[in-house]
C-alpha cells in the first residue's frame, strides 16, 4: 500500500466538509486509539475507528468510501464517551456515508431486510 501524501485544496475541502457535516473537529484527533480499543464492533471492521479518522486527516476520500467500517459502526457512541478529544466517530462516519450516498454506496438498504426479521425488528 502506498499513499502519496498531498494535502492540497481538494483534500482540505474534503476534511473541512467532513468537519462541517459532522460537527467534529477531525484535526484534533491525536491518534491515541482509544476509540478502537473500546469499539464493540471493531473486530468486524476493515479499518479501525482511529484509522477512519486518520484517513480523513490524510484526505483519503476514496479509501474511506470504500471501507466496510462505515456501515459496521453501530452508532453506539462508546468512542465518543471515552475519546480524550471528545470526537464523535459515529457522526464522522455518518458524514462520510452522506458524501458516499450519491456515489451509490449505501451498504444495506431496507428492502434487503429479511421478511421474517422485518416483522419483529423494532
Amino acid at each position, binding site marked *: 500500500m502506498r499513499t502519496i501524501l498531498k494535502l492540497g485544496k481538494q483534500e482540505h475541502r474534503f476534511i473541512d466538509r467532513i468537519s462541517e457535516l459532522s460537527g467534529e473537529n477531525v484535526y484534533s484527533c491525536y491518534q491515541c486509539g482509544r476509540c478502537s480499543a473500546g469499539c*464493540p464492533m471493531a473486530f*468486524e471492521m476493515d479499518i479501525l475507528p482511529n484509522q477512519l479518522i486518520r484517513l480523513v486527516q490524510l484526505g483519503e476520500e476514496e479509501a474511506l468510501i470504500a471501507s466496510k467500517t462505515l*456501515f459496521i459502526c*453501530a452508532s*453506539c457512541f*462508546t468512542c465518543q464517551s*471515552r475519546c480524550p478529544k471528545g470526537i464523535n466517530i459515529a*457522526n464522522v462516519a455518518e458524514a462520510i456515508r452522506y458524501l458516499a450516498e450519491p456515489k451509490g454506496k449505501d451498504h444495506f438498504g431496507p428492502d434487503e431486510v429479511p421478511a421474517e426479521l422485518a416483522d419483529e425488528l423494532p
Partner: protein
Amino acid sequence: MKLHYYPGCTLKEKTTNLDESTYAAMKMLGYELVEPENWTCCGAEFPLNEEKIVGLAAPARILRQVEMEGGDKVVTACAFCFNVLKQTHIALLNDPLKQKRINAYLKDDIRIDPVTKERTTDFPEYRGDVQVLHLLEFIQKEIGYEKVRSLIRRDLGNLRAAPYYGCRLLRPKGETGIDEPDDPSIFEEFLESIGIGVVDFPFKQECCGSYLSVSLPDAASEVSYRILRSAKLNGADMVVLSCPLCYYNLDRRQDRIREKFLEFTGMPVLFFTQILAWALGVEAEILGLDQHFFDPRPVLGITDKAEVAS
C-alpha cells in the same frame, strides 16, 4: 396524577409488553399516563448530520404537541425514543438557529381529522420548554425510591437482576445521558428500591449490536452473547433493560446466539417496567411475559396461572 407519556411506535406494534407493563406499573404508582394527541414516530435515530436536520422535525413535533397540551414534561419508557427526544430538545435549546429552522417546518403543519375531515392549520412554534425524562429518571427525581419501596407487594429478594443500560440511556456523553457513561448507578438504585438483588457486571454499558443484527447477524450475536455471558458469570438470574432494540437482540435473538455459542443456555431478559409492575403486584397476564423468547415466568416463580400474591 396525569403525566405525559410518549410510547413510540415500537411499543404499540412490537414490544407491547413494554408499553402495557409501563401503564400497569404507573397506575400502581398513582399516575395516569396521557399520550400526546396524534403522536407520530420519533424518527428512531437522531440525525447525526447537519444536512439531515429535517430529521429533527418529527421529534420536535411531538414535543410541540406536549407543549400545546399544556405539559411541561414528557416521559418515555423506551431508551431509544428517550434518546431521540432528549437530543432534539437539547439541540433546539442550545441552537436558536436550528430552533428557527425547525419551527419553520412545524408552523406549516396541516392536520386533517380522520373523522370530520376538518383541516387544522396555523400551528404554534415549539418554545423549547418541555423536559424529556426517561421513566427511570422520573422515578428517581419525582416519585422517589422511598415511595416505590413502600408500594412493593411482592418480595423479589431471592432474585438477582443485572441492569443493562446499553447505549441510549448513557450516550452520547453529556447532557443527553441520564447518568455517568462509565459509572452509572440510576438503574441499580431503581432495582434496589423494588427489592430485587442487583448484579454489577462490566458489560452493562456495552452496545448490544444495534441494527447490525440485520446486516451482520453473526457479529451482533457475538456482541449480545458477551453481555449475557457477563451477566450470567456475575450471578444474574435475569437481565433487566429498557430498550426494545436491546430486548430484540438480547432476548428475541437468543435462538441465533444459542446456535453460535453452544454452551449458552439462555437468560431471561425483562423490561424494567415488567419487573417493576410485578414487584408492585400487577398480575402476570398483563405483562406480556409470554411474548419473550426465553420465558421469564419460571424464574419469577409463575407456574401456570398460579400467581403468588403477597
